[in-house]
């Protein structure tokens, strides 16, 4: 480490003002602070600082995402080998998923971080860490077969237009990863929904070649239910991609077709535990999303007209992006409500809207993304009313103080 430190000190002057490589200063700084804690000491105000910084916060979120990422990779392989009707070991399945996933992750990070580094340099700021999380979220919420160039275009669009034009990390109104998904959803709907995108049936880098079995159908459970003719839920059964019936445990552990990060509720719960234990994610937001969802589900169940409206609560929570959105998307502190009371309202309406969109919009069986984006737009308004109550209380105090004096 010492040699590395000496090397960094040696090359540092090149990146300072006037140095040959000054145009890479933000990049140098990002790598230096990645390797070593900056030893700049406080100049004004408090003399001691909490050890938690932006890097630590973001890395906790990334770690919380890793269980979902790993199970997701395994499931990509599992679904693939099921689709082509071949036996494969757990490691083969995982390897297949890793190979399918890695290019997407690389594209998302290279494009997003490249833009972030360039803009930080132009602004003469340090590189903010926000995209470390967005970059891993993006491939996790996309169908596995999304073409890489689409990921590149969508990532560039959302980093520039959803984040940097607003001022960068901390100022964005909408969740960057969800804007990426929304951009793709509305620009290339055929690649983002339907039955053909959730399972990779072709080989990846030559691994796992084979032909799809006859009974194959790649529809997600929610997709199946949305297109089902069943009059109520009891007449309906969820099917896996080869026609086998899906158990609750398949759904809980994530062995169903779907976006990579969203399938395993179990892995998401592990992530949620870490986020709540470290205080990085707000348990209030998470809980209120489920509460809001529960209220909407109880109402739709009561007035059920079809199988989708009749779907019991646990299926709603296990399927689609509900849990993933509640734990990793709704809790994004920048785009969520910033007041504690606001978080209850914000989360509640996300859950409510997600279920409503799911149940009443047959064209789009998954409502989580739109619900969160919609509430992102309303978060400042919710905060406004929460803060306004405090302001009103203060004004009232002035009024009573005045009358008391008269």
């Amino acid at each position, binding site marked *: 480490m010492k040699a590395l430190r000496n090397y960094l000190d040696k090359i540092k002057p090149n990146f300072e003002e006037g140095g040959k490589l000054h145009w890479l200063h933000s990049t140098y700084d990002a790598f230096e602070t990645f390797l*070593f804690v900056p030893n700049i000491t406080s100049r*004004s*105000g408090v003399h*001691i600082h909490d050890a938690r910084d932006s890097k*630590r916060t973001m890395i906790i979120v990334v770690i919380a995402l890793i269980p979902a990422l790993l199970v997701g990779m395994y499931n990509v392989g599992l679904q693939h080998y099921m689709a082509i009707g071949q036996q494969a070991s757990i490691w083969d399945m995982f390897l297949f998923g890793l190979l399918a996933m890695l290019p997407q992750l690389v594209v998302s990070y290279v494009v997003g971080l490249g833009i972030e580094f360039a803009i930080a340099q132009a602004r003469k700021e340090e590189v903010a860490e926000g995209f470390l999380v967005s970059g891993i979220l993006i491939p996790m919420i996309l169908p596995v077969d999304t073409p890489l160039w689409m990921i590149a275009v969508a990532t560039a669009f959302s980093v520039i237009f959803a984040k940097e034009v607003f001022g960068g990390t901390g100022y964005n109104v909408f969740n960057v990863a969800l804007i990426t998904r929304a951009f793709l959803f509305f620009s290339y709907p055929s690649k983002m929904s339907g039955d053909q995108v959730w399972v990779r049936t072709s080989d990846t880098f030559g691994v796992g070649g084979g032909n799809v079995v006859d009974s194959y159908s790649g529809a997600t459970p929610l997709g199946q239910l949305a297109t089902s003719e069943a009059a109520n839920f009891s007449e309906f059964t969820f099917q896996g991609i080869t026609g086998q019936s899906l158990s609750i445990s398949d759904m809980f552990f994530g062995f169903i077709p779907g976006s990579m990060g969203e399938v395993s509720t179990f892995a998401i719960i592990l992530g949620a535990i870490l986020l709540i*234990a470290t205080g990085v994610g*707000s348990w209030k937001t998470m809980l209120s999303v489920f509460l809001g969802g529960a209220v909407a589900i109880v109402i739709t169940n009561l007035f059920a007209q079809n199988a989708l409206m009749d779907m019991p609560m646990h299926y709603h929570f296990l399927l689609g992006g509900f849990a993933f959105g509640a734990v990793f998307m709704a809790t994004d502190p920048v785009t969520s409500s910033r007041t504690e009371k606001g978080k209850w309202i914000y989360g509640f309406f996300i859950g409510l809207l997600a279920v409503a969109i799911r149940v009443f919009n047959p064209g789009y069986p998954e409502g989580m993304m739109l619900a969160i984006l919609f509430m992102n737009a309303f978060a400042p308004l919710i905060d406004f009313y929460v*803060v306004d109550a*405090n302001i009103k209380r203060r004004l009232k105090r002035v009024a009573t103080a005045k009358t008391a004096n008269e």
Partner: protein
Amino acid sequence: MANRIKIKKGLQIPLLGESELTARGTVTSEFVRICPEDYPGVAPKLAVKVDDTVKAGSPLFYEKKHPEMVFVSPVSGVVTEIERGERRRILNIVVKADGTEEYIDFGKKSVASLSPEEVKKAILEAGLWFAIRQRPYDIVAVPNKQPRDIFVTGFDSSPLAPSYDFILEGQEADLQTGLDALAKLTAGNVYLSISSKTTNPALRQAKNAVITEFDGPHPAGNVGVQVNHLKPVNRGEVVWTLNALNVAMIGRVFNKGVADLTRTVALTGSEIKEKGYYNMLIGTELSSIFEGNVTEGISLRYISGNPLTGRKIEKNGVLRAYDAQVTVIPEGDDVHEAFGWASFSPKRYSAGGTYLQLKKKYRLDARMLGGPRAIIVSNEYDKVFPMDIFPEQLIKSTLAFNIEKMEQLGIYEVAPEDFALCEFVDTSKLELQRIIRTGLDMLRKEME
């Protein structure tokens, strides 16, 4: 029985280096330096020239708009230098002590027989008015304004804070005299806040004051928090604030008839070998108590005050006007810590849950431990800000200098020190106290 208020929000930073309750004698220095910038809101006008002879209690400078508010020399001697900075701003007035300790005699007075105007005049002419601060703006109180109430904090809850119980031992009469004097200066009440751990009977059974007991972590001892819980400041109102040590100092001028600027100072911090309490005058050079008494071989940060709100001083720096504590911690600019973001090091302290906290006490240095960012994490400030105010929103409106919003969100109720803990826990490493100080100064300019 005193009223009791429980403070839930806040944080007691478990710092290493608390002072033992031992008196270690008196410290003097040849030169004494008074720094006008210690006194917020004061525009200094010199009352002396270089080579002037002064007594202890002679004015060195006064406030431009309020010439009756004087700031006096703590020692008798000769003014040897007036150090100036940019734009001829006065940095230090240096007085060489002649060792005779000749005091100007203002005459002993019995507070009970004085009118409010006479009380005010006695404090002003002895140069002790600076002890009284006002809200709004957290400046030295404007003498010709009537305060709605006066708030006195009877304990310091900040990290490594000096024990008021211990310091005030033997000053019980002065404290009561000071409270009696303050009671004459307001039509409202004098509120004295004590800690649930306060033992000194002069504080616990003080007369002429409304006593409230506060229980909870720092910043329960901050007078701003106490005001907010007892009777918040409204727009257009003025309250005065002090700490109990300064009340006793005011009491001394009536009981002894002289301007005695002696402080009992706690020497604290992880890098101090022999910790304890020293008596010294405001402005005394501290190098003699640091000499041979600090960790060798690493770079150190010397602070007059506590690690949250104190001022950075040099090794030969002086005790600043409002401080009863001197702290020495590692500077940390010679430390290169690899992969801090992935660290499991038990030496790192965090108020949040992102680090395992295994130790009971921590030795923290002055590093920022991160780069400045936009405000990202929410509910971070709120957890350590026990006032009925939204700290983040107030900071944002202050940054934008949106006066209407600042007023609505409670800018008149706060002082920079109230944001010290927010600044400590801030993931985004923003200079919140400086933001609030600048905002208050600009606001005052705008309003007056």
